[in-house]
Structure formats: structure tokens, C-alpha cells
């Protein structure tokens, strides 16, 4: 499929010695400390950790929504600057612009391209996320799961090198969540996109990730990284899966 050939990531992300400190009323509040992480192109990284471990902050640093950090974040050899279309993000609240249709939302970051190219990208991403027929719908007409898929399409339409997902399925009910997890896996496979996903749901992380990064809080640090060497599609009830899940849970305890 031409899709895979065009979209897939080629550059890896290198995070070295990254730390971030906020100043609240003159006193320093360290949020992240000494984060080391190497992410290969096409990898799926799941990040889990209790609230306050800075995982969202890490994502925001990667996307450039926040700056002012120690250490370095390098994408394929180039240190990152501010926000860029090379690094996309999907938020927990889909943040589709309510006044634009699904296809207009997807095309939001595509100015500068020829009209034909824009149409093509819209079409291929609509197909990728499975929203055929809903191009002209408005966000308020979509269910939570559909809206989130549209948000993913919007991010992928720009053909980023890396897609960061900040608890993308957190606002959905559990049935929808499982369904979207399967969808997300399929999208990842088809696009061969590098994905870094923060989640509260340990099972979700084990289901999707190549590696699960466990973070601890105050200040946010990487406690351990657990590789998931299971073949896809993974069986949530298989012994290996359950064991891995337990391993992750246990490392989350103190």
C-alpha cells in the first residue's frame, strides 16, 4: 500500500538528560528529572505512571508546547525547536474545532500544499482511521470514539515523524476504549508511525507497546523500562500477557 510507503517514520527520537523545573512562588518544583529515552522509528512506546510523574509534561516537551528544559531532545540528529508539524500530538479531549467539518479539521495543518494533494491526504487518512462517510459531519455529531479518530487523522495527515498521544482514550467508556485500542493498533501498523502514548491504563499499555516505560513521581523519573516481546495481535488473556501486566503493576507500586 502506498500509504505505508509515504507515511512511515524514518527518524528516531533521542531524549537525553531531560529535566524540567517549575517555579512556584519563587520556590523550585522539579517535575522531570534526568529522563533518558531512545525511541527507534516505528516503535510504539507506552508510558505509565501515577499522577504527577510528569508524563504529560514530557509529551509537551517533545511536541514543543513547553520549552525551558535541561538536557536535549533530538529528532533524527536535529535538536527540536518549538512546535513543528514533524511532531504531532493527539490530546485526551479531541479538540476538533467545532465549527469545521471532519475533513476541514483534518486539513487544518495542510495549508501550503496543492489542492489535489490536500484532497488525497484527507481521503487516505479518513480511510486509515475508518471514518468514511463522515467527511462532512460536524464534531458535535460524532461520538467520542469517532471524534478521537478524527483527531488522530488530523495529526497523521501532516505525516509527522513521531506522534505523541496524551491519554487519547481516557475520556471514552471502557467498551469504546477497547475497540479504539484495536483501531489504534491497526493504524499504527498500517502507518508504521512512531508513537509515544501516555496512559493510565496498564493493560492498554501492554496491549499496544513495544516497550512500556514506567515512571515514578516527585520528581518525575523513569523507574524502569519493560520490553513487551509478544506477537501481535496480542491476547489479553494469555498467560504471557497477564504476567507482563502484573510485572508492570508491580513496578508501579512503591
Amino acid at each position, binding site marked *: 500500500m502506498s500509504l505505508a510507503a509515504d507515511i512511515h517514520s524514518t527518524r528516531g527520537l533521542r531524549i537525553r538528560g531531560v529535566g524540567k523545573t517549575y517555579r512556584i512562588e519563587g520556590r523550585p518544583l522539579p517535575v522531570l528529572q534526568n529522563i533518558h529515552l531512545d525511541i527507534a522509528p516505528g516503535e510504539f512506546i507506552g508510558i505509565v505512571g501515577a499522577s504527577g510523574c510528569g508524563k504529560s509534561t514530557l509529551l509537551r516537551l517533545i511536541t514543543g508546547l513547553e520549552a525551558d528544559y535541561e538536557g536535549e531532545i533530538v529528532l533524527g540528529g536535529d535538536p527540536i525547536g518549538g*512546535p513543528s508539524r514533524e511532531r504531532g*500530538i493527539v490530546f485526551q479531549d479531541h479538540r476538533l474545532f467545532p*465549527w469545521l467539518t471532519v475533513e476541514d479539521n483534518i486539513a*487544518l495543518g495542510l495549508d501550503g500544499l496543492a489542492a489535489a494533494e490536500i484532497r488525497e491526504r484527507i481521503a487516505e487518512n479518513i480511510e486509515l482511521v475508518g471514518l468514511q462517510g463522515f467527511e462532512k459531519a*460536524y464534531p458535535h455529531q460524532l461520538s467520542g470514539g469517532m471524534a478521537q479518530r478524527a483527531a488522530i487523522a*488530523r495529526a497523521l495527515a501532516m505525516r509527522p515523524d513521531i506522534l505523541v498521544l496524551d491519554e487519547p482514550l481516557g475520556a471514552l467508556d471502557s467498551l469504546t476504549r477497547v475497540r479504539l485500542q484495536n483501531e489504534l493498533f491497526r493504524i499504527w501498523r498500517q502507518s508504521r508511525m512512531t508513537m509515544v502514548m501516555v496512559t493510565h491504563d496498564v493493560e492498554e499499555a501492554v496491549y499496544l507497546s513495544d516497550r512500556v516505560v514506567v515512571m515514578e513521581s516527585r520528581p518525575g523519573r523513569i523507574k524502569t523500562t519493560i520490553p513487551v516481546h509478544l506477537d501481535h495481535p496480542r491476547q489479553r488473556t494469555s498467560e504471557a500477557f497477564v504476567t507482563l501486566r502484573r510485572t508492570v503493576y508491580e513496578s508501579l507500586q512503591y
Partner: protein
Amino acid sequence: MTDITIDAGVKTPRHGKGRLWRGAVLPVALLAAWAVVPRLLPTPHPLLVPLDEVLAAPFIDESGREIWASLAQTLLRYAGGFALGASAGLALGLLVGASALADRLVSPSFNAVRQIALFAWIPLLTAWFGNGEASKIVFIALSAFFPVALNTHDGLRTIAKGYMEVAAVLKLSPRRRVLKLLLPGALPSILIGLQIGLITAWLGTVGGEYMIGIGRGLGIFIAEARGQFRMDLVLLGVIFLALIGFLANLGFRRLSEPLIQWQGTKP
């Protein structure tokens, strides 16, 4: 399940016909009384003019017929003044909403000046511009200006931060940011501002005419009718005052609803 109401025991018709009939009782009774009671008096009281005479005045009465020309003048002023004030309000609101610096510089003064009750401007305006068209138009513009500017500014300022982050991550150019995010995002508020502005400008139109008292218009018509003790013409004028305000509001709502249909039906 009992509800806490005074007439919990009375069977209240839930929808439609029953309630409509009830609502009509008082107005119909009042109108009927208005038509009949003045005629029951031994000698006609100048202030108690029967309803039908009031309604017939613009067609039959010589002074009453003046109202049409006055209305035309007033409506022209209304349109002109409103256009002027609303554009100025939009411009300022957009500027102050989009630029934090402009906001810091202008907003405090704007809010202070806004505190001055609108009609308090009239003596100053007439001192500056005389009693002619200019004062009236400026006053109407002023009446529209404040609500439009305020709500436009609000609309821009309260665009959810989440959307601004999306715009940042998607690297939207300033032009696209304005066209695809700021303007549509602020539109509901802007429309509210225009709706309020329409009403205040209408009150400013007729009120301004009434106070300044010179020239031709609905407000002046009412003022002159009052001077001549013509209660019927005063009532006629007030009816038109209320009616046109109501229609303007209704018309605007009908026209602006399609623009924000993307909001969907709120629960």
C-alpha cells in the same frame, strides 16, 4: 412524585392548547377593557382613549399620519448609527481580543468609560455637535459600540486554551489562525454582542430623539404628542417603539442562527 408547587393538587395541562388558552386570558381581557371601558365614561377623558382609536390614529388622524414619515427617518438613523457603532465596536473588540498588549492598555479605560450611563452622554454630545443629525447618530453609534466591543473582546479571550495549543502544534499561519480559529471561535459571542447592540442602539435612537427633541423621528413624535397632551399618539408611538425593538431582535436571531449551527443542540 409530588412537586413543590402551590397548586400541586390542581391538574396542570402539560403542553399545548390548555396552556396557550390560559396565557391569552389576561392580555385579551386587558385589550377588551381598553377598548370598552373608556367608552363607558360619561365624558370622554383625554387620557383614556379607546384601543381602536389608538390603532386607527396613524391612518385617520392628521397628526397621527405623521408617524410614518417619522418612522422612516428614525429607521434610517438607526441603521446608520448602528452600522457605525457596530463596526467600531467590532474593530476595537478584535484588536483588544487578539492583542494582549492592546488589552492591557485599553481595557481598563474602556471599562471605566462604559460605567457612564449611556444617556448621560447626551448633554455632552449636544454641546459638541448641536441638536442636529450628528448628535443623534453619534449617540446611536455609542449605544451600539459598547456591547459589541465588549462581547467581541470576550469572545476572543475565552477561546479555549486547548484550541490555541492545537493551532500552535499545527503551526497555523497567523492568517489561518484568525480565519479558522479566532473568528469562528469568537462568533457566538460576537453575535450576542450584535444582538444586544441592536437593542441598545434602538433605545438610543428613540431615546436620543426624545431627549434632543428637535428634528423628525419617532422619539420626537412621542415628545410632541406628549407636549400636546395626546395620550393616544403617545401610546401609539410607544407601541411602535416596543414592536420594532421586538422585531429587530427576532429578525436578528433568525438570521444568525444558521451561522452557529455547528454548536449543535445543547442538552
